[in-house]
């Protein structure tokens, strides 16, 4: 008997042909992508999916959690003592700094009061742990162990003890995904602390480097300058350190200078980060200062 089909599977019960089926699924996928990218209809779907994959993340994260716990439980007395001493010293220094800071804050509030634009970071903050989960190596994203159930919202700013870490991009039920300031898709509005110059710092894909592409050759910036968040864009609270300028290259033939900076936050070594609730002052229309994160922008302004 001649075999008319190259497929040995039975003809009855085979369903529509391969091409038709794959076409159908491809169309659904494209619809999903368009819906997700252009209209953000699918936040609810994402929520559900995040619950579905949560066990996977939880399981993968477990060894890290266990080793951390074991390490904590079995550190010896000497180590704890030396750690305690170091922390006492650090706390004393911090308290000394705080004394002058209180007066400065008071003065600053008064001066700003004249302008009627007082930025406030509310006292509410929350510690989140970075789950030991590897996402795409080309993108600097992390999964945090706090989600919608804990009040996390899209576009929430994340700090660590040394500076600005990133912002929340997706909120799941029990977890959320955050983008680091070093991700090539991320840009953060900054100010040079010394000169007050405002610009934008873009991620490069390396945790040790940010790029400042919009500075002219005459810009008042030099290596060692501290970049702080400018608060434009309404996502990051102003005044927190972002990066330190490491390289400034001015060539007479170029309009723009090549400026690089190193993030102050320990982007690749953090275990715990802090989510903060920051209420930016009301602006009517503001454009997209966080130009590449417009999605996050929309919700952050009215949480």
């Amino acid at each position: 008997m001649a075999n008319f089909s190259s497929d040995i599977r039975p003809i009855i019960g085979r369903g529509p042909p391969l091409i038709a089926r794959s076409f159908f699924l491809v169309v659904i996928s494209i619809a999903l992508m368009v819906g997700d990218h252009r209209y953000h209809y699918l936040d609810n779907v994402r929520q559900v999916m995040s619950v579905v994959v949560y066990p996977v993340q939880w399981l993968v994260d477990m060894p890290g959690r266990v080793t951390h716990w074991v390490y904590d439980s079995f550190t010896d007395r000497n180590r704890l003592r030396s750690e305690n001493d170091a922390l006492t010293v650090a706390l004393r220094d911090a308290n000394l700094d705080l004394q002058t800071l209180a007066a400065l804050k008071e003065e600053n509030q008064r001066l700003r009061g004249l302008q009627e634009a007082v930025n406030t970071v509310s006292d509410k903050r929350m510690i989140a742990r970075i789950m030991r989960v590897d996402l795409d190596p080309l993108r600097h994203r992390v999964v945090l162990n706090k989600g919608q159930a804990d009040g996390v919202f899209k576009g929430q700013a994340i700090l660590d003890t040394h500076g600005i870490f990133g912002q929340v991009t997706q909120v799941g039920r029990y977890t959320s995904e955050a983008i680091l300031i070093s991700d090539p898709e991320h840009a953060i509005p900054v100010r040079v602390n010394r000169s007050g110059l405002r610009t934008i710092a873009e991620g490069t894909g390396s945790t040790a480097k940010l790029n400042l592409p919009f500075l002219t050759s005459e810009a008042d910036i030099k290596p060692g300058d501290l970049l702080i968040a400018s608060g434009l864009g309404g996502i990051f609270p102003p005044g927190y350190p972002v990066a330190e300028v490491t390289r400034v290259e001015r060539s007479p033939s170029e309009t723009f200078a090549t400026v690089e900076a190193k993030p102050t936050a320990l982007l690749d070594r953090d275990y715990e980060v802090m989510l903060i609730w920051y209420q930016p002052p009301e602006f009517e229309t503001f454009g997209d200062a966080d130009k590449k994160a417009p999605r996050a922008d929309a919700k952050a302004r009215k949480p």
Partner: protein
Amino acid sequence: MTQERIGWLRIMWTSAIALLLTIAPLPDAVNAARPDWLLLLVIYWSLNAPMLAGLSYAWMCGLLMDALVGTLLGQYALTFVVIAAVTHRFQLRMRIFPVLQQAVIVLLLILSYHWLLYVISGFAGDQYSSWLRWIPALAGALFWPLIVSVLDTVNRLSK
């Protein structure tokens, strides 16, 4: 019927392991070379159990990847379906190839998979044109013989 259910179970738990491997933390040096475990698995099951692991299975796997990695929803779903469709189309030819020849074809499949992802991320406006993007394809092809032998063993033992 029960035979089918057992087959389904096997596909499910192997896919679950592949998902775990997809996000398991690795040292930075080898992280970029992480094979696309789930895709390799989808190719394997499309070759060896085409009746069970059809296109909708591939699509679901892709959707899970989307949720897990947090990319544009549907991006992995689409690429998984396309790769699975090609595999189904050439399934009868591919399964009689020796494993090394299969590995070469798998390499081509994964390369086209990454190319598709690259194109899609280009449409979405976030393209990373790093050459590191192509390493997982090579790693996947290298791991293919291992995957085939492990899963063949599993299949033989559970018969």
